[in-house]
């Protein structure tokens, strides 16, 4: 289990390649920064976090999901700082014996991260205006 908050770009690859052979299903989610917000052209997003608490809460979410859905493993990475359109802000990956658990667990983790982690984003628009969410 890995839960991480980082400013480095998120590299996407098959995260459970070497985890043994009882894995039957892997579901991954990528949250990507869009180029518009409320139909205004976005220059980039800025994500601020209470990194310590966000990281602790993320690991709590993963732990809950692993127990609730009998997962074999789960990973989540939230990028913070400046993120440009097309870049990945959130990566979640889970694996389980069967597919149903993986789909449900991945969705649960993404929802929980968005609801529970002390992370905030600010739109920086092409026209120079800014707005916190």
């Amino acid at each position, binding site marked *: 289990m890995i839960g991480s908050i980082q400013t480095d770009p998120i590299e996407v690859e098959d995260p459970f390649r070497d985890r043994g052979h009882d894995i039957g299903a892997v579901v991954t989610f990528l*949250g990507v920064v869009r180029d518009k917000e409320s139909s205004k052209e976005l220059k980039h997003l800025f*994500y*601020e*976090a*209470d990194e*310590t*608490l*966000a990281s602790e*809460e993320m690991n709590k979410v993963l732990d809950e999901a692993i127990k609730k859905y009998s997962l074999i493993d789960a990973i989540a990475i*939230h990028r913070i700082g400046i993120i440009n359109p097309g870049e990945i*802000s*959130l990566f979640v990956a889970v694996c389980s014996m069967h597919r149903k658990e993986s789909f449900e667990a991945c969705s649960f983790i*993404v929802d929980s*991260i*968005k*609801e*529970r*982690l*002390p*992370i*905030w*984003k*600010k739109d920086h628009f092409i026209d120079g205006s800014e707005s*916190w*969410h």
Partner: protein
Amino acid sequence: MQGYHIGGKQMKVHIKYYAKYVEYAGAKIEDLEVERMSISDLLEVLKDRHPRLKEEKMSIVALNGRFGNEKTLISDGDTISVFPPVSGG
């Protein structure tokens, strides 16, 4: 609750603001001296000082770097983090 004094004694507390609350409060950190009170009462004090904080529910707070309960009483030297509604992902 032994050692609990009503009124009188002033507590020095450090308030940490995040995201848009930094703009509402005009600072990332604010040091205040207040009577002993619950965190939820302290939030009302903060709203009086910075009226824009009234605009929305401050649902999450942290006390000394841990998620806190709003009913907890503040102690001298405490750091209270005041979080806007989260918007990660």
